[in-house]
């Protein structure tokens, strides 16, 4: 694995499978009386969050602490006026404090790239969501969730529905799912699909009802009401009618199909309450899996002298 996790596209299939298998082992930690492993003892993980996100930050914090790492939380509301001083100076300060890894969420696409490549620090950088670019650990926990329910993802059909244009979750998932052999279909009104999406090696569709019956996984993305004011769609009512997942549409799904959502949900907008609370919905489980997956990522990046080699190379050693 590379030293930083900036994009889901950086992971080879072997890397991705290594993360998933490691997460599987770590998931059982939640059932033990002492939910701690010593692997990152003495390592310092900094959560550098320039955007509000309780869910993701807590998930990373829990992951780091369960591996016995020291965790420092830094929340900064970076307004569009605050310039690079914030990012650069913060990075230099953290380096001086001896951070081993920086988990960064930022409103600017590419901010983690800057942290990783600007030469300000030597920490491993984990992208916890940058602008509308990527959210690789979300894609990993989504893939992990799918894998636990469906087994191998080769040939599986995943439908991602919603505001693809502004969604970093969609971008990371499209990349990672392709790497793991799945077929991805992006479903959205034309205004919410990016120019050039044809080059992403995915299918696209404006018709949710045509896509749902064939899907093994349906992932609903958040759609912000404010997009209505920028004329991406006329009204909330029209959006939910044409692209929302409600009970009626849920009944067209196959028996084994699961419904996912990266959260936070807007009940009534892209997904109705009956769907969110149904047995098909694995939304709550995604959160649990998030901690295990993030533990796996932190362990594989920081647990050794360098990040883990890929699956084939890291074999066993003679005793002991």
């Amino acid at each position, binding site marked *: 694995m590379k030293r930083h996790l900036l994009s889901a596209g950086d992971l080879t299939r072997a890397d991705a499978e290594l993360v998933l298998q490691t997460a599987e082992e770590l998931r059982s930690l939640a059932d033990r009386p002492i939910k701690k492993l010593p692997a990152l003892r003495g390592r310092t993980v900094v959560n550098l969050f320039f955007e509000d996100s309780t869910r993701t930050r807590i998930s990373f914090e829990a992951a780091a602490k369960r591996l016995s790492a020291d965790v420092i939380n830094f929340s900064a509301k970076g307004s569009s006026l605050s310039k690079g001083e914030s*990012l650069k100076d913060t990075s230099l300060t953290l380096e001086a404090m001896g951070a081993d890894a920086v988990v960064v969420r930022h409103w600017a696409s*590419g901010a983690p790239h800057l942290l990783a490549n600007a030469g300000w620090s030597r920490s491993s950088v984990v992208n916890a969501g940058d602008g509308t670019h990527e959210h690789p650990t979300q894609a990993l926990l989504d893939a992990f969730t799918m894998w636990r329910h469906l087994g191998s993802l080769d040939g599986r059909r995943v439908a991602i529905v919603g505001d693809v244009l502004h969604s970093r979750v969609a971008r990371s998932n499209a990349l990672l799912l392709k790497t793991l052999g799945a077929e991805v279909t992006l479903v959205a009104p034309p205004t919410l699909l990016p*120019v*050039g999406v044809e080059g*992403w090696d995915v299918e696209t569709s404006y018709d949710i009802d045509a896509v749902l019956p064939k899907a093994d996984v349906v992932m609903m993305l958040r759609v912000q009401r404010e997009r209505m004011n920028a004329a991406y769609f006329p009204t909330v009512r029209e959006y939910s009618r044409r692209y929302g997942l409600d009970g009626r549409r849920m009944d067209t799904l196959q028996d084994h199909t699961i419904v996912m959502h990266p959260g936070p949900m807007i009940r009534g907008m892209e997904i109705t309450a009956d769907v969110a609370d149904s047995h098909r919905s694995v939304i709550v489980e995604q959160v649990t899996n998030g901690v295990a997956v993030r533990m796996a990522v932190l362990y594989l990046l920081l647990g050794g002298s360098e990040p883990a080699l890929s699956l084939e190379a890291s074999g066993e050693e003679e005793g002991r």
Partner: protein
Amino acid sequence: MSTTYVVTGARILGGEPADLVIEDGVIAEIISTGSIHRSTSSTTRGAGASRAGAEVVDADGLVALPGLVDLHTHLREPGREDAETVETGTRAAALGGFTAVHAMANTDPVADTAGVVEQVWRLGREAGNCDVFPVGAVTVGLAGERLAELGAMADSAARVRVFSDDGKCVSDAVLMRRALEYVKAFDGVIAQHAQEPRLTEDAQMNEGELSGRLGLRGWPAVAEEAVIARDCLLAAHVGSRLHVCHVSTAGSVEILRWAKAKGWNVTAEVCPHHLLLTDDLAATYDPIYKVNPPLRSAADVQALREGLADGTIDAVATDHAPHPHEDKDCEWQAAAFGMLGLETALSVVQQTMVDAGLLDWAGVAERMSVKPARIGRLADHGRPLAEGEPANVVLYDPSYSRVVDGTELASLSRNTPYVGRELPGRVVATFLRGTPTVLDGKQA
């Protein structure tokens, strides 16, 4: 009292070598050396060498061009002296072979009154590195609401003829029409920064597959092309001149070709960086590549080169845009738009046009000196290299090659996108009305 210079063995416009005698601010004589053996001052060769006290400049192997004229430079003074001043910017210009620059109006305060343009003009004269022709804003404060006092600026000591809200677009159609009409009274020209504001709100890079992947808001080509088309039609309708700043797309070139075919009085410029760099550089997320208009695709670059070669695009202009370090050493979205250009312009044009076989040196002179001077209505610049003409001359060595080092620039800022890149050629000497501003590649 001024020194006489004898430039020996220079290839005029890349042609046959000749000696130039520069005296009292003009090209006094041109002696074609023909079969005469080129040597230094010790040999007696015609009247030139016999001038007492003449300083000889050995131009063996160098190309002589008329002093370059930049239609589009940002000198940042008044207001942003942390990025550049008239002194440092014109020094950079001279080192780039320029004898005249048009200083854009988006300063602080904006150059929308006679007072500010005269201030900039005077600063240019005091610095003495090259002639500075301030550009006047089209609208007050660049706000796009009311016309600035264009007439006052035209009548001022700065004699403004080029007006532009560059940095922003004059997007209101009626306002643009009025501006086009109004400047006819004093043979002025509106230089439009073509960028439909609503289509480019918070836009960061060229809109295409890459912008979608990188999560950077896209800047569609149509935002530039639609404005150019509208303005060409307006200019034709009211019988006015139009100049289009920094053309960046293939579609824009096509529209200009169409407008010129109709005989409309439209001129256009292209920046060196748009002749060389493409949008895939944004994948590094390094804001050194963030510029307005954005870097475009390889197909656009090719169309721009062809458009410059066939004359659809009249001129090369640098859009030299200095920014202090902290405005570029940050995440892309927070960074300022713009690149330096004065000191590398001729090298980039050599690499992309001359070395690529698309232009000869006479063609370069046309596009970097003659046409820009004509558009700006400059009397003393862009003149032929002939006896009696003002001695605005640049001597350039095309055989040189260097890897660009950001620390060697005369500009106060360092935001050049070419660091680490090998570029050909260097300016050896620049003469401003007979006085050297650059000798031996350094400030004179």
